[in-house]
């Protein structure tokens, strides 16, 4: 393989951000644009002040050129994240969050912080969520068995973070255990 060793085990976070940027998001355009064909599909037309749904990467691009306002998705609000955080802290499993919440939230907070209310509170809530879920992963590490591992409701960034470690550890456990099963 021509990939360097460090990249063979997992995807990089910027790549995940790139993939997440294909999700649709709602904007309030400030300029008009006709229905335009892109490789992934045709989007538009943009007719201010009507809202439109376009992929996140176009939204970011327009926002940086100050040509639109981004409408925050409903899960990126203090009430939603707070309720999820409480659920996270009280229940043993992981709470349900949008699969790519980490990437989308980081991008939106960086680019469109003026379109979102309470960005500081949201940032701290997201950080707490991430740490709570990481603590749960650590506890789950002790129940690691060699054949399967199912952790529901993990987000894509979290899966990517723990995948190389967990897979390698499970391989080692298989290797150690095989000696026992070959004895009769």
């Amino acid at each position, binding site marked *: 393989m021509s990939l360097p060793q460090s990249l063979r085990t997992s995807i990089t976070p910027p790549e995940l951000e790139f993939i997440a940027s294909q999700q649709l998001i709602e904007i309030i355009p400030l300029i008009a644009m006709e229905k335009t064909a892109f490789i992934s599909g045709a989007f538009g037309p943009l007719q201010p002040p009507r809202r439109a749904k376009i992929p996140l990467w176009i939204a970011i691009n327009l926002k940086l050129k100050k040509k639109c306002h981004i409408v925050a998705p409903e899960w990126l609000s203090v009430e939603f994240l707070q309720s999820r955080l409480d659920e996270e802290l009280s229940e043993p499993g992981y709470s349900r969050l949008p699969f790519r919440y980490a990437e989308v939230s*980081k991008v939106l907070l*960086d680019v469109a912080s003026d379109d979102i209310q309470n960005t500081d509170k949201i940032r701290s809530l997201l950080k707490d969520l991430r740490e709570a879920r990481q603590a749960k992963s650590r506890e789950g590490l002790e129940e690691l068995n060699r054949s399967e591992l199912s952790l529901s409701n993990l987000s894509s960034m979290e899966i990517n973070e723990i995948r190389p470690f967990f897979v390698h550890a499970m391989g080692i*456990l298989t290797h*150690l255990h095989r*000696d*026992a099963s070959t*004895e009769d």
Partner: protein
Amino acid sequence: MDNDYFSIDAILAENQKVQCKFKQRIPEMGHLGGGSERDITPLNKRQIPIWLAYIIIYSDWADFDIPRPFSNKVRNALRAEPRSVRLSNLVGAGTGWLGDEQGVEMSEMLVTTFKGRLVDVIDQAQHFAALGPVGGGGGGGIDSAPQMFREGLDTTERELFVLAQESAWRMKKWYEESSGGTKRVS
């Protein structure tokens, strides 16, 4: 062990030497021990690599002593507190092993040890992610207990450590860089 014919780890593990006490006289094999004798006399102790010892013991030409990593003393220490044992000095290239009645107990003990140390490995790796990618560490102000644990890591544990450290470092770097700043505004 038959499946590991091509595995480098298994080859290295099987190359480790184990103390054997020969029971019979074997002519003209004195060179195995590196000594100057022509024959191996009974009750003679030699160090034999595991792949050779396997057949010798199976054919009942010698008895072997369990090598130091798997002695009872170490086993009890591991059972008490997996993290406090410095494995790096004891286990050379791996933990592949022969099978006999002790094999099952041995592998269960290995599994428990491994899982017990695993959480610590990942904790330390995440802590070290803050110091930069592979090669960071060794700064002043780190207290001695984690450092001793790190020095006592087995080879396979070191690989896991590096994996976890790298992924934690990548995440940290990504969170700190801004998505909006790198794009050009026209």
